[in-house]
C-alpha cells in the first residue's frame, strides 16, 4: 500500500495503470479499508494522500455507477423480446471455427430457440446438426471485429432468425454478442409467396397436363417437405385411382392403378363430397380398419392431405400430399394445398383443352391437305387470304407462300373483279352465313376454268373471316355445255324439216277436206296433232338449253291474268272429258310479263294436272291478287308427289315414276321450263302434295317484273 503512495512522490498525475487495475479487483470492503488507511497518512503528504483518496473514492463511485448501469443493462437484457447471448467462438488448430460456447443468454433466448440452460454449454452439445454456416459467420466476426447483420435458417431448431452479431472484449477472447429474432413466420409467408410465384410461372410456361402434374407434385413436395405428392385421376366408374407420376422423398413410388376402396370408405366419401381429406395420424385413426391401416403402412403413409377435384359434378381428380410420419397439417398448409389444386386443375383442364384443340386442328389440317381435289381457302373479314391448302395450290396454280396475305380477288376473272363479285359473295355469306355459286375463275397463268364454290362466314362469335371450298368443274361444265350444244343444234336442225312436214300436213288436211274422204281426213287430223306435239317437244328442248345458259328472252307486256287463264283452259276443253276444269278468281289483276311464256306455264300445269290424275276429278285453277303480285294455283285430285320428290320435280329431265301407273310420257322438261320462266320473272313456284290425294302447284308473279 505504502509503496503505492510513497511520500514526496508526485501523484497529482494519473496513478499508474497497474494500481488502478489493482483497485478494480478489490471488493468494496477492501476499498473502504483503503480509504481509512489513506486518511491516516501524514499531513506532509497531504496532497498525495488527498489524491490517492480521491482515486479510491472515484473507484467506489464509479463502481456504484457501473453496478447501476449493469443493473439497467441486466434489466434490459432480461426484458427485451429479442434473444440475446454472448458466445465464445471455438476454433480448431487451424483457426477454423467449429462450435461456440454460451457465456450468457437472456430469457427471450429460451423462448426464441427452445433451448434451455445453455450457459456453459456448446451449441453442438445442444444441437449436433446445427449448420456450419453459423459457426463460420461468428468465427468471422470474432476475427475481424466487423459486426454483421444476417438472416439464416436453423433447420434443427425449426426456425429462421434475423441476427445482429458483434465482437465484444478483446480479439483474443473470440467473444461475440448475438442479438436475434425469430422470423420464421415472416419467412413462411415469404416462402408461400415465393411458392405461389413459382407455381404461377410454372403453370404459365407449361401446356402439357402431364408436365403440369409433375411440376406441381415436385413443387408442393419440396415446399411442404412431404414424403410423397401425387395427382390421381379417377376412373370413369369411380372405382380406381390412376397415378401416372408422383414426387417422392425417401418413400417408394406409387404410380399405377389402385383400387380406391382399399383405402377406406370414409376416405372416398369425403373426397366424393368434394371436401378436403385431412388425416394427421393414420395409425391412430378411428375411421380406418386395421386392414386399411396396413394398406397405408405398406406404402409408407402415416398422414395425408387430399384435395378432391370435381368436374361436371363428379369426382375426377385428386391431389394428395402424404407423410411417412404423422403430421399435423396446419390450416396454412391445407389452404395452400387447396389453392394449388384449384390453380393447377384449371391449368390442367386448359392444357387438356388446348391439346384436344391442337389434335383437332392437326386433324383438320391433315384433312385439308388431303383434300387435293378441293381448294380450301381461308380469308380474313376483308377477304385477305390466310389459308391455302394443297388442293388450292393444285387448282389455282398459286403456292400458299405466293398468295397468303393477298386479296382473294386475284382468283376471280377481271370482269368479276370489276363487278365486285368477290365482295358480293362475302356479303351474301355474311348475311345468310352461306354463299354458293358456279362461275369461271382464273388461274395464276391467266387460264380460265369453271369453279363450283361454297363460301361460309365464320362467326366466333363476331365475324372472324370466311372459308371458301371450291372445286374445278371445268370438265363437267364442258360436258354440260356439249350436251346443251347438242340439244340446241338438234332441236334447231329439226325445225326446218318439221316446218315442211307441218306445212304438208296442213296442205293434206285442206286437200282431204275438199275431196271429202272422212276416214283419211281423221288420219290427217291425227298426223297434224302429232306434228304439233313434235314441235312442242322441240321447243321444250331448245328452251331447256337456253334456260341453262340464262339466255331465255322475254317480251313483257301488260295483260289480265284471268283472261289468259281462261284462254288456256279453253284450249283443253275439246280434248278433256273426265276432268272438269274450274276457274276461280279473286279480283282481276293485270301483270306485266311475257304473256306467251306465262301461258306456257299455265298450259303445262293444267296438262300435268290432267296427266297425273288418271282417275279424273276436278281441276281447279285459281288466281288471287296480293299486295305484291298475283298467285295462281292449279289443283288436282291425282296420284300426288312423294315428299322426297317435291324438290326434284322442278329439275331437268325429272319424271315421276309410279309403281301403279304406267310411266308417263314426256321428257320431264315441263316443270323445269315453267320454273325457269317464273323465276326469271322474279316470281316463285312451289307445290303442295299428298300421295294419292292430289297436288296443288302454285306460282307467284310480281306485278311488274317482266324482263
Amino acid at each position: 500500500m505504502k509503496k503505492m503512495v510513497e511520500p514526496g512522490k508526485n501523484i497529482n498525475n494519473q496513478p499508474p495503470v497497474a494500481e488502478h487495475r489493482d483497485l478494480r479487483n478489490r471488493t468494496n470492503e477492501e476499498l473502504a479499508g483503503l480509504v481509512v488507511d489513506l486518511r491516516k497518512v501524514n499531513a506532509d503528504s497531504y496532497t498525495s494522500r488527498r489524491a490517492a483518496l480521491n482515486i479510491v473514492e472515484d473507484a467506489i463511485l464509479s463502481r456504484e455507477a457501473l453496478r447501476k448501469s449493469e443493473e439497467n443493462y441486466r434489466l434490459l437484457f432480461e426484458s427485451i423480446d429479442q434473444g440475446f447471448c454472448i458466445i465464445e467462438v471455438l476454433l480448431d488448430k487451424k483457426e477454423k471455427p467449429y462450435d461456440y460456447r454460451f457465456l450468457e443468454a437472456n430469457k427471450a433466448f429460451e423462448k426464441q430457440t427452445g433451448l434451455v440452460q445453455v450457459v456453459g454449454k456448446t451449441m453442438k452439445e445442444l444441437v449436433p446438426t446445427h449448420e456450419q454456416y453459423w459457426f463460420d459467420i461468428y468465427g468471422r466476426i470474432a476475427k475481424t471485429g466487423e459486426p454483421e447483420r444476417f438472416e439464416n435458417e436453423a433447420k434443427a431448431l425449426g426456425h429462421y432468425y434475423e441476427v445482429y452479431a458483434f465482437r465484444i472484449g478483446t480479439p483474443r477472447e473470440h467473444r461475440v454478442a448475438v442479438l436475434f429474432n425469430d422470423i420464421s413466420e415472416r419467412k413462411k409467408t415469404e416462402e408461400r409467396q415465393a411458392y405461389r410465384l413459382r407455381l404461377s410461372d410454372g403453370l404459365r410456361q407449361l401446356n402439357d397436363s402431364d408436365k403440369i402434374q409433375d411440376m406441381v407434385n415436385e413443387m408442393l413436395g419440396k415446399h411442404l417437405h412431404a414424403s410423397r405428392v401425387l395427382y390421381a385421376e379417377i376412373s370413369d366408374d369411380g372405382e380406381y385411382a390412376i397415378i401416372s407420376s408422383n414426387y417422392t422423398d425417401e418413400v417408394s413410388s406409387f404410380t399405377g392403378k389402385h383400387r380406391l376402396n382399399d383405402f377406406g370408405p370414409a376416405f372416398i366419401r369425403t373426397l366424393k363430397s368434394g371436401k378436403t381429406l385431412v388425416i394427421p395420424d393414420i395409425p391412430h385413426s378411428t375411421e380406418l380398419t386395421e386392414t386399411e391401416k396396413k394398406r397405408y403402412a405398406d406404402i409408407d403413409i402415416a398422414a395425408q392431405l387430399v384435395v378432391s377435384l370435381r368436374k361436371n359434378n363428379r369426382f375426377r381428380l385428386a391431389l394428395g400430399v402424404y407423410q411417412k410420419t404423422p403430421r399435423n397439417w396446419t390450416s396454412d398448409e391445407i389452404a395452400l394445398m387447396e389453392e394449388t389444386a384449384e390453380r393447377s386443375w384449371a391449368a390442367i383442364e386448359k392444357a387438356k383443352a388446348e391439346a384436344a384443340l391442337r389434335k383437332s386442328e392437326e386433324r383438320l389440317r391433315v384433312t385439308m391437305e388431303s383434300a387435293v381435289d378441293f381448294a380450301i381457302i381461308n380469308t380474313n373479314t376483308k377477304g385477305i387470304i390466310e389459308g391455302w391448302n394443297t388442293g388450292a395450290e393444285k387448282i389455282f396454280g398459286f403456292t400458299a407462300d405466293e398468295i397468303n396475305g393477298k386479296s382473294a380477288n386475284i382468283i376471280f376473272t377481271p370482269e368479276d373483279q370489276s363487278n365486285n363479285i368477290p365482295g358480293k359473295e362475302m356479303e351474301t355469306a355474311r348475311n345468310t352465313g352461306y354463299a354458293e355459286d358456279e362461275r369461271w375463275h382464273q388461274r395464276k397463268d391467266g387460264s380460265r376454268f369453271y369453279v363450283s364454290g361454297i363460301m361460309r362466314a365464320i362467326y366466333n362469335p363476331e365475324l372472324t373471316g370466311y372459308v371458301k371450298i371450291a372445286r374445278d368443274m371445268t370438265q363437267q361444265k364442258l360436258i354440260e355445255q356439249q350436251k346443251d350444244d347438242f340439244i340446241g343444234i338438234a332441236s334447231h336442225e329439226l325445225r326446218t324439216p318439221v316446218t315442211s312436214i307441218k306445212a304438208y300436213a296442213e296442205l293434206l288436211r285442206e286437200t282431204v277436206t275438199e275431196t271429202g274422204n272422212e276416214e283419211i281426213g281423221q288420219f290427217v287430223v291425227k298426223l297434224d296433232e302429232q306434228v304439233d306435239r313434235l314441235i312442242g317437244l322441240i321447243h321444250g328442248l331448245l328452251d331447256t338449253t337456253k334456260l341453262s345458259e340464262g339466255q331465255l328472252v322475254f317480251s313483257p307486256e301488260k295483260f289480265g291474268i284471268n283472261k289468259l287463264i281462261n284462254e288456256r283452259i279453253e284450249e283443253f276443253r275439246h280434248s278433256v272429258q273426265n276432268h272438269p276444269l274450274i276457274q276461280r278468281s279473286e279480283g282481276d289483276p293485270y301483270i306485266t310479263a311475257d304473256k306467251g311464256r306465262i301461258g306456257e306455264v299455265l298450259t303445262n300445269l293444267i296438262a300435268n294436272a290432267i296427266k297425273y290424275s288418271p282417275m279424273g276429278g276436278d281441276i281447279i285453277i285459281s288466281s288471287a291478287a296480293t299486295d305484291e303480285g298475283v298467285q295462281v294455283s292449279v289443283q288436282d285430285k291425282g296420284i300426288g308427289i312423294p315428299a322426297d320428290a317435291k324438290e326434284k320435280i322442278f329439275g331437268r329431265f325429272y319424271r315421276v315414276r309410279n309403281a301403279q301407273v304406267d310411266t308417263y310420257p314426256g321428257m320431264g322438261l315441263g316443270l323445269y321450263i315453267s320454273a325457269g320462266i317464273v323465276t326469271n320473272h322474279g316470281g316463285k313456284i312451289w307445290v303442295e302434295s299428298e300421295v294419292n290425294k292430289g297436288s296443288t302447284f302454285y306460282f307467284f308473279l310480281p306485278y311488274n317484273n317482266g324482263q
Partner: protein
Amino acid sequence: MKQIIIADDDPGIRDIFQLILKRAGYGVTVYANGETLMENEYTLPDLFILDKQLSGVDGLEVCRFLKHQEATKDIPIIIISASPYVKTIVDESGADDFIEKPFTTKKLIELMEKHLNRN
C-alpha cells in the same frame, strides 16, 4: 298478183313455200342463197322472205343490204329462223317482221298480208 321472193338454202322449204304461196294466190320466186339478191338484177317483189341462216351471206346481211338500197328500202322483209331467240338482232337488221320455225301456213300468210296491205 303480189310477187314474193323467198331466199332459203333448204330445198324442202323452198318447195313447200312455193306450193303453199302459189295456192294462196301469190307469185313466187325462190333463191337458194342471198348473194343473188345483192349482186344480180331481178324484178322487184312486193315482199321478201329471207331465211336468217343462209349459206354464204347470212339473211340478216342481205336484209341490211336491201334496206339500204333506194330501190328496195321500202319493200317489206320477213325473216324466218329456226331459233326463237334472235328477235333483237333481227330488229336491228331493219327487217319488218320475224317468224319462228316451225309455223303454220295460216300464221305465215296472216303475217304476209299484214305487211302487204300496209300501204
